[in-house]
């Protein structure tokens, strides 16, 4: 049973070419000057940290630019890169919802759907089969959501929030 289970998953499903492309040339990587949202996220499983940046429109409602920085594994960097593509242009409420949805998808709590505007996201579906790596993929997404919450709570500017995925199962 265990062997059958293991045979189903294949490293090539994890390390897809599209993923390598994002890893080697990540989109919107590097500090984003003037961002209202600046949040650090920490993956306690490996100790990796990313910082996520969000620059808002004049109304403070919509993410005009989204960026990230930090060190992480290929999956983390690629997923962060795709996150910036997904979130750009969304309202804060939409972005929060997109973060939740992505997390649910990666945890097999929702069907895996690729938004038409970011087809590359499909490359992350294989990660679902490697539970220890799911946190790598969700790190930047959770971090942005935490940043949005902090911003909405009035913690604007350089303020950072630690976004820690824990191993507590939530129902």
């Amino acid at each position, binding site marked *: 049973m*265990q062997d059958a289970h*293991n045979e189903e998953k294949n490293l090539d499903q994890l390390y897809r070419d599209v993923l390598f492309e994002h890893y080697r040339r990540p989109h919107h990587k590097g500090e984003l000057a003037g961002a209202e949202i600046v949040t650090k996220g*920490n993956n*306690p*499983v*490996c*100790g990796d940290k990313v910082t996520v940046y969000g620059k808002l429109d004049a109304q403070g409602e919509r993410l005009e630019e989204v960026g990230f920085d930090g060190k992480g594994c290929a999956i983390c960097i690629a997923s962060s890169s795709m996150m910036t593509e997904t979130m750009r242009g969304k309202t804060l409420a939409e972005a929060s919802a997109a973060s939740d949805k992505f997390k649910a998808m990666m945890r097999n709590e929702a069907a895996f759907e690729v938004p038409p505007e970011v087809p590359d996201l499909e490359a992350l579906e294989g990660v679902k089969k*490697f*539970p*220890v*790596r799911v946190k790598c993929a969700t790190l930047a997404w959770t971090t942005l959501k935490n940043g949005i919450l902090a911003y909405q709570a009035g913690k604007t500017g350089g303020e950072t929030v630690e976004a*820690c995925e*824990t*191993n*507590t*199962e*939530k*129902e």
Partner: protein
Amino acid sequence: MSNTQKAAAPARETIALDPRRVAQDFPILKQKIHNGKRLVYLDSGATSQKPFTVIDAMNEYYHVSNANVHRGLHVLAERATEIYECARTRMHFFINAYLPGEIVWTKNATEAMNLVAHGYARKFLKAGDEVIVSRMEHHANLVPWHLLAKDKGVVVKGIELNADGTLRLEELDAFLKGGKVKIVALTHVSNVLGTINPIAEIAKKVHDAGAIFVVDGCQAVPHLPVNVQTLGADFYAFSAHKMLGPTGLGVLWGRMSLLEKMDPFLGGGEMIEEVTISSSTYKEPPGRFEAGTPPIAETAGMTAAVEYLMKTGMANIRAHEKELVSYTLERLKSVKHLKVFGPANPEIRAGVFAFEFEDIHAHDVAQILDGEGVAVRAGHHCAQPLHEWLGSPSTARASAYLYTAKEDIDALVKALETVRKKFA
């Protein structure tokens, strides 16, 4: 999914449990001892025997999956982590906890009780605050509070018993009225008297008084359907080895809201968020309380044990034991000069029978029973305050489980006659 719907295995009260068929699943019960005598094991209150499936699950773990858990990417580490975390999920269904993360793995029930005393009580109680225990508690539910009392000036008070071995609940009411009680810590089932305490009823009283209710479930989880949501306590502790599982594993269930407030107990790997050379921050529960390499193979055995119990049906097990209580109390009446302790009503009694001959010491009784192939325990059963009340430093105790048949009780009665003859 709604939590209240996560029921345990469907109760199949209609299918009567046949203890002799059940016993076939337990290899140790097939052996002969002392020159070919059948082993009559009546010491399940101390530890239960294990079915093949439990032993085999641990075997298989070491043959196929053994690795350290967490932070591992290789195939064995993944298997081990899955086994470890799935056991947690399974256990949360078994006792109907709200969340898998409310199941904290410990080394035994004793560590679980200490974890509450140390991580919760030490943090939130101050000198003069009261902890209420009872006369029938096991040392595991006394000594942790004594250690706390010594360190923090907390006051430990005990509920006394009625003549039939039930709690004098009016004393609890009086203590609670005093307004200083922060924690009430009671056993669900007495390991000497067999008394089943009305936990849900007590939980209401305790909560109305704004206190926290800690329950020692060691002798309950193996024998009764236990649903922590309907019982309504705040912490519930028990051991794997008394419920068909292995040694080296215990459980603390606690409400997540309380676990989250608690300090860690043991410090080390797997329970930290971040460590520098001079400070550390801690993980969320349950990780915060599971420092170091946990008992992993043991959780594989635990899963098999829970499956065995669910398949058999906890309601069936309870029905069988209730019948055995009636039968045993009746049969023991026939033994001259034998005093049997605990409630006579099978509705509030589990299959535990402490007894004594007025003029024969419990250790001599147990020794001679052993010679007849009947394994009982003699001593204070880690309940010295209760034995003080019984007026005897030690008793002999026979305790039953799902594999105990009426024939075993008959063998006990016969062997007790031999004791009488030898000491005549």
